[in-house]
């Protein structure tokens, strides 16, 4: 009964997280809905802070919706409603000063028991920034660390794509600013569903709530609160990722930033964070060290399952170790005929020694991944 009532109250699109929390400190969700519907007075601590016309529109919205239907919609979309006080409610959020009163959750909440690193950044990311985010995501996943991000364009999506491309045990956690069934931005829909099915997707809002601009800074506080370490990969001089960084700093969570060129606008914000004293990230090890995982002592896997490269392939691999190379450069460095070079590079890629992107070949495991 409470699940439906919570979905109705949060989905009314009138109350922000703070007022919602205020309302539910004085009423149970069910009682609040009944009072709003029948027009009976609410607790004065709540009504004092709400303009009368807002209150009226809230009553109208609540009257127009049905808690039972809202609960069914959640169930149909496999969205679990976890209210503050529910035993499943994430412990890290429990004592947060701005804890959401309810979470609408898809996937497995146990992911939050893993070590957790948030990776955030600008939507206007450079190619290098997205590659960095993807490599960090993949390296952390390989060390069983859960990667928390926001599923936005640019850095956020790249970080989760990195997790997806890794075969490590680490999983993805997404904190989104719309309903858990409302894909935003659209091009990330497949990633969205992948996170929901193999990791954890959290929203403060019930299914169907559209991605209003003001909800994104709000979700950043949840993202920050869930992280043990927050890494900002790229950020402009102002932007949502800096809000997340501030929210993390307020909660005593370590913030780290990836340094970038002072000429690139996408690095202005992160470089400013570094000037302000956050720790730099130059490799995945830096993040693991901040988590207290000294990963170098664990040693590498004793057995490498990849097919060892043959002579020709070894020459191509060596050429690509030198610097990320395209076919022209491989031919130049090895002197092989172009079709031999292309064949060797393609086979190396299939057996997992190289990655190819847009015609450029890089060895798997760059410096960033240790």
């Amino acid at each position, binding site marked *: 009964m409470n699940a439906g009532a919570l979905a109705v109250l949060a989905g009314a699109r009138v109350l922000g997280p703070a007022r919602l929390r205020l309302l539910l400190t004085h009423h149970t969700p069910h009682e609040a809905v009944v009072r709003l519907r029948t027009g009976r007075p609410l607790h004065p601590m709540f009504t004092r802070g709400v303009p009368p016309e807002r209150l009226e529109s809230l009553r109208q919205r609540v009257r127009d919706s049905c808690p039972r239907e809202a609960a069914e919609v959640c169930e149909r979309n496999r969205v679990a409603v976890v209210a503050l006080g529910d035993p499943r409610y994430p412990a890290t959020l429990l004592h947060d000063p701005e804890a959401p009163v309810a979470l609408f959750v898809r996937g497995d909440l146990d992911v939050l028991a893993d070590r957790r690193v948030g990776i955030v950044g600008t939507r206007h990311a450079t190619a290098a920034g997205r590659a960095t985010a993807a490599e960090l995501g993949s390296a952390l996943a390989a060390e069983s660390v859960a990667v928390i991000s926001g599923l936005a364009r640019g850095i956020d999506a790249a970080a989760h794509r990195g997790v997806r491309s890794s075969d490590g045990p680490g999983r993805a956690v997404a904190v989104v600013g719309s309903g858990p069934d409302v894909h935003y931005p659209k091009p990330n829909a497949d990633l969205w569903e992948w996170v929901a099915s193999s990791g954890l997707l959290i929203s403060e809002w019930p299914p169907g709530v559209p991605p209003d601009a003001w909800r994104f800074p709000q979700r950043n506080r949840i993202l920050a609160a869930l992280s043990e370490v927050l890494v900002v990969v790229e950020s402009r001089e102002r932007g949502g990722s800096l809000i997340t960084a501030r929210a993390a700093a307020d909660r005593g969570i370590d913030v780290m930033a990836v340094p970038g060129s002072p000429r690139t606008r996408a690095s202005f914000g992160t470089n400013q964070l570094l000037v302000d004293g956050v720790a730099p990230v130059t490799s995945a090890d830096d993040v693991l060290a901040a988590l207290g995982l000294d990963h170098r002592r664990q040693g590498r896997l004793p057995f490498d399952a990849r097919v060892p490269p043959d002579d020709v392939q070894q020459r191509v691999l060596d050429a690509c170790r030198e610097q*990320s190379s*395209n076919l022209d450069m491989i031919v130049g460095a090895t002197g092989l005929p172009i079709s031999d070079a292309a064949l060797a590079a393609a086979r190396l890629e299939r057996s997992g020694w190289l990655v190819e*992107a847009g015609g450029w070949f890089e060895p798997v495991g760059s410096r960033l991944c240790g």
Partner: protein
Amino acid sequence: MIATVETATILGARGHPVTVEVHIAKGLPGFTMLGLPDESCREARDRVRAAVQSSGFHWPEKKVTVNLAPPHYRKVGSGLDVAIAIGVLAASEVVPTDAVRGLGFAGELGLDGSIRRVPGIAPMVGVRLDADWVVPADSVAEARVACRGIIRPVERLDQLVEALGGAARWPEFDASPSAFVEPELHDLADVKGQPLARLALEVAAAGGHHLLLVGPPGAGKTMLARRLPGLLPDLERSLALQATMVHSAAGVALPPGGLLTRPPFRAPHHTSSLGSVVGGGSHQLRPGEISLSHGGVLFLDEMGQFPPQVLDGLREALEDGQIMVGRVEQLRVAMPARFQLVGATNPCPCGGSGSPGDCACDERSRQRYMRRLSGPLLDRFDLRIPVNRPEVSDLLDGAPGESTGEVAARVRAARSVAFARSGGLNAELDEQGLNEFASLDLDAERCIRAEMERGRLTGRGYHRVRRVARTIADLAGRSDQPIEERDVVSALGMRARVGLSAVGAAA
């Protein structure tokens, strides 16, 4: 008195027959022209009169009426001058009417009575293949290309009148076309390094694939594109004739032999208007750059900077091999436009080298930059080649690569194999043709399947890769065997992603 004289006018790339009828009668002296002459043609009135008088003939002080039949299409340009002058002289009995029968006249008159060349002699002469033609002396070669009858080159109006009247012999002219062959200026040996781009040129030439070069400024995209026509074989006779007609109609210089035998190369600038690229524009419906590149190569540098209408205008030609240009008041005119398209573009607005980490552009601006190349047009390019700046060491002391001659020999062999196999070039293979002529061996199929399962190859991309792989195998001399894995991976390397940034996409 009345006289009829045959000539022709140009519409698009084709000539249309025109009969000049001249009527001279008593009445108020005057000169009227009927039959839809356009502005440039109406000026003939004053030129013809001046030329007749300065050649020493008497201008009839009577009412002169000239009709250009048939009257339903516009007569354009000054090529009708000579015919009108001869008509007037025949009607006033200076020239015997019998002498002009069976003769066509083309050419412009100077005020001093000299006969000058006009654009479009070849298509004009072509409308009456078997007639004899009187043409300006400097257009002989051009006229001979299109005409089987006797060509009478004449330099002056008085010479022409004397010859028609039997008072003098027709002026002699040198009948042997010059054997001068223009040397190929752009040799592939000049390209240092860049093995992928060189291979791509070879594949494009052998398979007839449209080619998109994606690379930063200074990578040599234009240099590469200029070397494509050199790899193509000579034009076959009918194609050469069509191309010559178009060049003649547009007034573009023809080789000394008159017939265009080498594939043309056209590179319009991106500020060119729709009319100049696609064709049309005036009443004459001039052939555009796409028709001028018929049988050859159309190179569009900075392709994204062309106005969208121009790029859309290309699509009809790419589909049908011709372009229909029409005007409300007259016929729709088809012009041939079967060309090989070579496009060039920067990978992104910042003009960086394109290597990972060297681009300062954000995703949005890259997408906006590339969105200017519309999807349907992009789909036409079987080959999308990343072109990289050559290494300094290659530039300074790299050995020269294979020359155009060596590569062209392989291209010729591959083209004839493809023609013998499917009756066309590999770029024209559709799905059925691919299944029939481009089977994959086991490794090749596994390679393509893996690529598709990883979502890096779409259905359309699959067909493109197979066509290109077929050409690569043909060039390697394995035209009668199924496609191997090495062909497929080379073909896969020839489809640079356009629009999306290179690096994040793989993650």
